[in-house]
Every structure is written in structure tokens, then in C-alpha cells.
């Protein structure tokens, strides 16, 4: 048995290349992810796999696999490095078309992780809410608090940099923060949620949310499946949802009742409007 230790994709790739060259069977490996040996990518405890002879000096894995890994490796799961290696081993030594087998359990797991991360990044791009702060020295700065379930900040960063290139902003979370000063992206340790942040624009946004909602078409389930509750605490508009739902029926019934109580009457129209309407109707009949 060999014991190996990696904590990021780069270290995993380096180590995997060495393991594949020696055709080390996945079942002979125990994977740790403390990152303590990541620099060396070496073994500790057990036997030293580098003693094993190289049997295949140039093992190659496909670009598709690496693409899937780039996102799947953001998934927080202890098993992931072992599963990735097992897949890499099978791709090289058993079936190079393995990834096309949609119902292989490991391929399924890889695709599930990849899909989850894609969805989480997509939802992060959607549900981050910046608050503006006028800072004495920095001018306009934008802050957002966002708690990702997986380690997606670095992967999601290019989206925010390209979109808000000319803004100074920070994305804050308990597991890490990133900061853009209009030139350079930097990362820092996680922090506790800052208290008392406020932005006047939020009340306009809430007004918009209230007004664009159509109470005659209540579909709470559809809303919730696309905007799960776990995101609500960072969305200023989510505070309105409960009341909007509760009042929906009376609002839309209100429309009908108002009509019944007071049948539709043409309001007095200005002469000018009437004349313009007449012209339009005439033009249409020509």
C-alpha cells in the first residue's frame, strides 16, 4: 500500500503523472488531503511508490477529462482525489472512451460533481449582491457577502473581473475572500460576516421586485427550485417573498372584485388622443 497526499488540482496532476507512469493500481493507494505533503507530492508512511519501475513514460489523459476536473475539483468531498485517480487510471489503461459511458458509477460521480460546481458558479454569478460604500480614500467600493458550499471563488473570479473590471470590489466569505482593485485580483483569509452594511439602492430594487411580480400567477415551487432558500439570506428582495405570497390571492382577486363593483367605463379622453386614434384607425384601413 502507498499513502499519498494532495490538496489541490495542481498537486494532484503532478502526483498522478508519476503514479500513472508506474501503473500503480488505484486499489493500492490511500489518499489524504491535508496538503502537508503537497509541495513534494511524495509519500509518507507506507511504501515509497517511486521505487516502482516506470512502465509507461508518457501516459496521456484527454482534454475533456481535464476540463471536467477543473470544476469538479472545487467540490468539497474527501473522496474526490481518489476517484479522479481511479478514473485517470481507467482512462489510460482500460478504456479511453470511458467518459462517454454516462452510466458508469465513477463517471456519473465525476459528472455530478462537475455539474454541481457549474450550477453553484452559475448561481453565484446570479445571486451575489454588491453593496456600495463611499470610501474616503478609495472612492466607490463594492462589497458582497457570499457563502459558497464548495471552493468556487477562484474559478468564479474571471466572470466578476471581466464584468466589473472598472469597479473596486470585494467578495467576502467565511472560507476566503477575494478583492479586485481594477488591476489585480488578490485573495485573503475568510472573515466573519460584517454587520450593519446598508445600501440605499436596495429599497429601489425591492420596489422593482414587488412591482414586477404578477400576483395572478403564483408559482412558489417554481421560484424555489431555481432560487433555493439557502441563498435567500443574502438577497435583499427575499425579505419580501413571504408577504407577497400571503397577499397574492387578495391582490389578484382584488382586480376582479374591483371590476365587478365598478364596471368598466371609458374615461374621458382628450380630443387630441381621440384624433390621433382616428388617424391611426384610418391609416390601418387604407
Amino acid at each position, binding site marked *: 500500500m502507498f499513502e499519498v497526499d494532495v490538496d489541490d488540482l495542481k498537486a494532484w496532476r503532478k502526483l498522478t503523472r508519476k503514479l500513472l507512469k508506474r501503473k500503480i493500481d488505484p486499489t493500492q493507494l490511500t489518499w489524504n488531503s491535508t496538503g502537508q505533503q503537497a509541495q513534494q507530492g511524495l509519500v509518507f508512511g507506507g511504501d515509497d511508490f517511486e521505487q516502482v519501475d516506470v512502465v509507461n513514460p508518457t501516459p496521456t489523459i484527454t482534454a475533456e477529462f481535464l476540463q471536467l476536473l477543473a470544476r469538479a475539483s472545487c467540490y468539497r468531498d474527501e473522496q474526490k482525489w481518489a476517484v479522479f485517480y481511479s478514473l485517470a487510471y481507467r482512462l489510460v489503461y482500460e478504456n479511453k472512451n470511458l467518459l462517454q459511458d454516462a452510466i458508469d458509477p465513477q463517471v456519473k460521480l465525476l459528472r455530478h460533481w462537475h455539474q454541481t460546481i457549474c450550477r453553484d458558479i452559475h448561481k453565484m454569478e446570479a445571486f451575489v449582491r454588491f453593496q456600495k460604500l463611499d470610501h474616503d480614500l478609495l472612492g466607490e467600493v463594492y462589497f458582497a457577502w457570499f457563502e459558497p458550499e464548495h471552493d468556487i471563488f477562484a474559478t468564479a473570479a474571471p466572470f466578476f473581473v471581466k464584468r466589473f473590471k472598472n469597479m473596486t470590489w470585494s467578495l467576502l466569505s467565511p472560507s476566503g475572500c477575494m478583492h479586485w482593485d481594477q488591476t489585480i485580483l488578490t485573495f485573503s483569509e475568510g472573515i466573519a460576516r460584517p454587520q450593519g452594511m446598508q445600501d440605499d439602492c436596495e429599497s429601489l430594487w425591492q420596489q422593482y421586485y414587488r412591482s414586477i411580480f404578477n400576483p395572478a400567477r403564483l408559482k412558489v415551487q417554481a421560484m424555489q427550485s431555481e432560487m433555493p432558500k439557502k441563498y435567500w439570506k443574502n438577497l435583499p428582495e427575499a425579505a419580501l417573498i413571504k408577504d407577497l405570497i400571503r397577499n*397574492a390571492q387578495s391582490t389578484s382577486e382584488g382586480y376582479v372584485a374591483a371590476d365587478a363593483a365598478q364596471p368598466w367605463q371609458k374615461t374621458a379622453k382628450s380630443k387630441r388622443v381621440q384624433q390621433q386614434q382616428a388617424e391611426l384607425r384610418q391609416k390601418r384601413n387604407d
Partner: protein
Amino acid sequence: MKLKQKLAILADAAKYDASCASSGTVKRDSSNGSGVGSTSGGMGICHSYAPDGRCISLLKVLLTNFCIYDCSYCINRASSPIERARFSAEEVVNLTLDFYKRNYIEGLFLSSGIIQSSDYTMEQLVRVAKTLRVKHDFRGYIHLKTIPDASPELLRAAGIYADRLSINIELPSKRALQELAPEKNPKTIHQSMGTLQDHINEAKEHKADKEIGSRRKKKAKFDYSPAGQSTQLIVGADPSTDAKILTLSHGLYQRYKMRRVYYSAFSPIPHSDQQLPSMPPPLMREHRLYQADWLLRFYGFNVNEITPIGNSTSADANQPNTNQPEAHQMLDLDIDPKLAWAIRNRDLFPVNINTASKEMILRIPGVGVRGCEKIIQARQFRRLRIGDLSRCGLSAKKVGPFIETADYNPHNKLLTAADLKAHFMQPKQAQQLSLF
């Protein structure tokens, strides 16, 4: 009037437009710009969802809800006793940028009531888009509602600044338009859709020429409405059948290469006109129309298969037989249109998913485009068994009666049963659906 109050009125007035898409445009971002904004090129982003289940992707507002038109189905018609407001161009520009910088939205969907004249109104809309693009170098998404009677110059200018343009066809028939929207002119609606499409095609060809002309893919000088055009029609305000509506949609997709036709179930609005039906159509009808629309565009169905023509001898499969009873021209509200088709054509089933063509697999009820892809991929490696269905993301209960696998044949009695439809309907479920 305060900005917040204007926003309340002019967002409320805009909510009957179903579209909020920010998809399908070109990919761009602010890395070499002076402002903010980016577009993904493919999929848009929904930044929020309202409790009506609809995506909120864009700031969707009217520039003004004053209107000289008197379309009876519209809350903003001239004779409607609602409160009126008007944004200045600057107010809309600032709202868009303020919302965008806080990551609330992908961009702006701007529409307007018609004030003074079509050209005047269109000019106001174009001015907002131009200010965002030129003065603020805004690279987010802009959707402009286009006034069909506006001059060709304005239609051209609109597409230079907008990602998507739309002209609403409003109602399924000319007659309905005449009765309910007396100032609207069906002829200019179609003409302008044609004009927009010409511009869109021209810009695309121009771009393609550029790309062939130079080895390096130089960016073309201009795009014209790169996300194409879309339209909307109101369902249930007039007696048009689903067959009629789908035939119209099919024509719009063919003729003007519409990216989307939106269906909007006529919704009860305050102070509605008595010309209109007193009850809204079931929202399920709108849902079924969207499903049918998908079958037309992505599943290889034609209109007559979806709204059956019985023993028709009609030559063109997309021209429904007008002699048939109306009921047959309506989609079944209880079950989805693909399942309804399969039940009518049950002699084509069961389909062996290990051997059938892609076209036929797409026609199995309960199999979507992705499910179909997964079946085709997975069967290259093994003969599929009934247990593999769930691994392809398919429900054995839904597709079971219609397929054969290596180890499974459907209960033959079920496929020949007179009440096959009932198998798919649970009384309780039917109840819930009507609440939609």
C-alpha cells in the same frame, strides 16, 4: 413624482411582457472598456425569481405608461383609469447602471406606451440605449421593444445598440387584432418584423465576410441585434384555437427566424375591458402551448401531429384542416402534448431503445433532448436494461409503457387499453395542475 414611485408604476406596467431573457447574444465584456458589463454569449443569467416563478434577468420597465392606443387587453390603454408616469432617459440609464453594478440584473428591457407618435416614442427608446452604450460604455444586455410603425432609420439605429429587438404580434388573428387593438396595424407589424430580419441577416453576412476576408478573426464593425428578434402573443383574449396559434408560431419561426415566440395567458388586470372574456384561460393552456412550441422546434414534430386533424387530406402538414371540430384543435390540458400524441399513435410503440433511431427516441413520452442523448451514448457501451433508465435520468414509470429494453417489455394490455391516458393521470395530481 419620486423615482421609487415611478419605478413602482412603470415596472408594474411592464410585467405583462413575458420575456426576460438575456441569452443568445454575442460574447463580450469590459476588460478593454471604460464601463461595466458582460454577456456570456450563450446562456443568460436569472438574477432572481419572483413568486410567480418567473426569471428576473433584466430591469424590465416602460419608459412611460401614457399611451394613445386603446388595446382592450392592455392595462396601459388610453382609456384605462390607472396612474401614469414617465421616466426621463437619464433616470432609466442611472437605474440600469445602479442595478447592474450591484449585480441585480443582466441589463435592460425597455418598452413604452406610444406617446405623441411612433417615431417620437421610438426615438426616446433608442436614446436610452445609445446613452448606455456610448456615454457609459455599457456592455450588458439591452432588449428594446420596437414600435412597428417607426421609421426604417429608427429601426436600424435600435438594432445597433440593442442585443435583441421585439415586436409583439399581440393576438393570433388579424380579426382579433382589429377588434381588440383598433389602432394596431397587422400589415406594419409583419413588415417591420421583415425589416428587422433583413438587418439581422445583413449584419451576420457582413460579419461572416469579414471573418473569411482576414485570416485573423477580426471583429466586425457592427452587430445588429445579435440575439435576434422575439415576439409575444396573448392567449385566451380571443377565441383562436391552439392549432391556429401554433400554425402562426410555426410561420413566425420560419419567416422571421424568431428566436422565441412567447405566449402570455391573458391575465386579469384591474379595470379590464368588458369586450374581454370574464375568466382568464387556465395557465395550463399557456404551459401546454410552450410544450408544443418546444416539440415544433426541437423534437421534429409538425403542427398537425400536435393538434390532430383526424382523417384530413390536407396536403401541407403544417396547415391544419379547418373543417375539423374546434375541440380537436385544442391541446389536451390534462396531459402534455407529446404524451397525447403517443396515445393517439400507440401503434408506433413500444420503441426499442437499444435499436431505435434518434428521431424515434425523441418522440417517446418522458424522454427529453438530454435523456435522448444519454440513451444514445450509453447504448454504445452496453445493451440497456430497464434499470439503466434512472441512470439516464429517466423515469421508468413515465417511459415504461412505451419502450422495450433488453430485459423488459411493457405490459401489452396497458398499451392497448382504452384508458391509457388515465394511467398517467392521478386524480390528486390533476387537481394540483389546475392551480398552476
